[in-house]
């Protein structure tokens, strides 16, 4: 099937009208030396039933989280996605439309973005939000770049407890913009005030904090933000959207920019994407933000309507002078998040975060009781915690996998200095039975017993 309506007869009529004799003639201006002289070597075309069968086969080669119980987080979390979301996202008017360049026929997308922006402001405690970025890592990197341009300084400080993948993305962006990155050590899983104070100087554009950080540990944002501000630097906080159901809004703790991963709110894990990154700022920094932004206005008859606004920042107007090269947002993902936030409301959001936290606290306690694990940090955490293990994490995870459980993240991959350390995430989906089985196998129990 090629999804092409023109019949050979119609093609002949059209060619005649154009004044050429064949479709090949339409490509006559391509230098012969460059023209493809062969047929592309691609797998043969599949019919609809064949394709379905093939894709089902590929999908069956994966151990998916309907058959496996997940205790892995490390930046992506196995939360329940309410079924309503896919029903609404499957409305073709949402998923087959383009960026809302023609606002009169895109009010649906624009109003949804406007509502999403409001929700992000409410959750983060910030004054303005954009229409989203690719993911939490790129949102943080864009925030760092923006801070350097706003502050006209070029140094960025951040603790080593920031997600290793985020730090790598930051390094890629920084190398190419001559931004100096300074990694600070953590103590007890948190960055200490003294450490930050000693590192801050007049070249520091911003301090990046992640809370919950990669270890799930919560940072003391207020005093750190205050230290940054004293040195004329911005404070950028990366967080998780769902965590904000329980945790203080970074906007109330002195953050100038708040970014983060929004996957936890209404988006499938999907092997890593698409998810979305949120990006919120103080009013003062509004005109320096990257990305699309929707705003409310009125039409000729005075009726309320929405448009993409502050476009003087953007690439299609400013070209090489734009604040960022970003021209899209992860629109379907943020509509999912807006639907999720609407379904849950303020109480549901709190309950969701509380359930995750209750189950994480319980699981940690049970794992410690086995005597096979000791705490890596004593600092408060959210949904995810780190433990030291006597056994090699690889071996423990392999045993869990045999028992159809995806175990925690092996921290020795990025933090060899921590020894055998394990990062375990527990979401609201985990039942007491699943947790008991997990704890039992992790402690050395037989993975084949149910």
């Amino acid at each position: 099937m090629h999804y092409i309506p023109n019949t050979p007869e119609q093609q002949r009529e059209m060619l005649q009208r154009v004044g050429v004799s064949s479709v090949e003639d339409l490509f006559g201006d391509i230098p012969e030396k460059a023209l493809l002289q062969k047929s592309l070597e691609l797998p043969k075309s599949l019919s609809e039933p064949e394709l379905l069968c093939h894709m089902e086969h590929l999908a069956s080669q994966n151990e998916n989280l309907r058959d496996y119980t997940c205790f892995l987080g490390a930046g992506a979390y196995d939360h329940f996605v309410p079924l309503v979301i896919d029903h609404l996202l499957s409305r073709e008017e949402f998923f087959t439309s383009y960026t809302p360049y023609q606002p009169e026929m895109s009010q649906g997308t624009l109003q949804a973005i406007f509502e999403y922006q409001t929700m992000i402001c409410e959750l983060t405690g910030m004054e303005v939000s954009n229409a989203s970025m690719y993911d939490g890592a790129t949102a943080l990197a864009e925030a760092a770049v923006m801070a350097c341009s706003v502050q006209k300084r070029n140094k960025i400080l951040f603790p080593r407890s920031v997600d290793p993948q985020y730090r790598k993305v930051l390094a890629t962006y920084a190398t190419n913009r001559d931004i100096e990155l300074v990694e600070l050590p953590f103590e007890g899983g948190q960055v200490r005030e003294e450490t930050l104070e000693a590192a801050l100087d007049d070249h520091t554009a911003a301090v990046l904090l992640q809370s919950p950080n990669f270890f799930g540990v919560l940072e003391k944002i207020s005093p750190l933000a205050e230290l940054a501000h004293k040195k004329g630097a911005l404070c950028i906080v990366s967080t998780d959207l769902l965590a904000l159901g329980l945790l203080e809004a970074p906007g109330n703790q002195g953050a100038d920019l708040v970014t983060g991963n929004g996957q936890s709110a209404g988006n499938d894990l999907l092997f890593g994407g698409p998810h979305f990154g949120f990006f919120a700022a103080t009013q003062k920094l509004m005109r320096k933000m990257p990305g699309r932004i929707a705003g409310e206005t009125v039409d000729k008859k005075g009726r309320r309507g929405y448009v993409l606004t502050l476009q003087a920042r953007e690439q299609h107007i400013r070209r090489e002078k734009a604040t960022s090269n970003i021209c899209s947002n992860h629109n379907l993902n943020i509509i999912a998040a807006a639907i999720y936030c609407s379904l849950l409301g303020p109480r549901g959001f709190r309950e969701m975060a509380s359930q995750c936290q209750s189950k994480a606290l319980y699981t940690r306690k049970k794992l410690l009781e086995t005597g096979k694990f000791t705490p890596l940090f004593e600092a408060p955490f959210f949904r995810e915690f780190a433990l030291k293990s006597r056994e090699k994490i690889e071996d423990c995870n392999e045993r869990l996998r045999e028992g159809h459980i995806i175990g925690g993240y092996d921290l020795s991959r990025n933090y060899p200095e921590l020894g055998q350390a394990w990062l375990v995430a527990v979401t609201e989906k985990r039942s007491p039975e699943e947790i008991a089985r997990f704890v039992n196998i992790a402690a050395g129990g037989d993975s084949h017993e149910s």
Partner: protein
Amino acid sequence: MNRKDTPTIFEQSVPGRKGYSFPPLEEVFSSPEPLVPREYARSKAPELPEVCEVDVIRHFTGLSRKNYGVDDGFYPLGSCTMKYNPKINENVCRLPGFTALHPLQPAESVQGALEMLYELASMLAEITGMEALSLNPAAGAHGELTGLYIIKAYHRKQGDHQRKVMLVPDSAHGTNPASATVAGFETREIPSNSRGNVDIAKLREAVGPDTAGLMLTNPNTLGLFEEEILEIAAIVHQAGGLLYYDGANANAIVGRVRPGDMGFDVLHLNLHKTFSTPHGGGGPGSGPVGVSKKLEPFLPTPVVCKKGDLYVLDEERPDSIGRIRSFQGNFGVLIRAYAYLRTLGAEGLKEVSGNAVLNANYLASLLGKTFELSHSDRLCKHEFVVSAKKQKDAHHVTALDLAKGLIDQGYHPPTIYFPLIVEEALMMEPTETEGKETLDRFAAVMEELARKAASPEGAKGLHEAPRNTPVTRLDETQAARKPVLRWQRQNS
């Protein structure tokens, strides 16, 4: 289209309503301790709406009906390739074996997913004539940035630190110069010649020891093939620069000519354009980056590789530009593109470009009677540009007015005021998934609008268009001067 005023979801809030159901928290989980210490705990609940499931369904369904998608009708938005998004792709990307995968699961447990990624990259390498591809970039602009980082890393590795200038034709997409700046290059613009192509003499003058590369889309934004592409490649290469292919317009050439064979060293593709994945009202997209052999070591990590019988994600690549995002690409989008390619095969792809180009030339020939074509002496590729200058000069009816007039006739307008080098530009890309009769009807409507423009009443009507939409033209100046970027209680 839904023309009713839709209150925001916040204005529909009724205290006490909810749209979720969790299982109750089991007794074993209860603890007298606070969940987080007070100093970390939220002090004020977020003001999210309190609504039930029916409210949510009605609200977002109502909003969706204020949009217009490809499934609603013709969408000739130039350079955006608004082709039909096959439905089977929506089914296969929702298989739990794909959606319910954690991105950090061990490679042995996700062999089907990795195989799909590996095969997709191989197919795209064959289609583009490049050595290898990274599927990681999340969008076209993200792909551009990645490609430019690769160019930078290559010159750095060669010890060529003076190559700071990225050449960009004046017909380029706005993202090209923006990406070049973000990647840390200075941009230098190369003018077009009278045939709408890169001015070769000017290019020769512009290249030198500071040239990092040239970014080019071919066919360009006028829909014209750069006939002297081999000469252009030679000039840039002789000067020590690299050639970047912006794949936004790849729908014109798939299966017929390959960027690798034209001399391009690095490229990005827009899977949401050429490879039929839905645009989603602005995203998510996917912008894979392809490179020639000498640039392969610089690809971003991770790279999907095959080691023996096992597919793995390779992170150990010393010359890599590093990570450009979390995890390994917009997997959900990549599945759809993979399914599309497996459906089409080599012959199907050739029909795509053939019909896309045929449709564009046919529509141009119909519209050429009434509107000024930017280059009527040449065949176009997948898109073409007409100017409403005639209508503006004679009747004060602009490209914008015509676009808004089209909305009232049930069409999504073409791209307007781009490329910047054509006055009152209307840039049209019909794509291959439209039939002749759709193009005939559209051309008739365009002609009717031109006739309307010629009468004072008709012109007045066009200035006031659109009328059949939820709102009429919106005050964008007010939106930018006094930004209202979130709902607030006092507004209601």
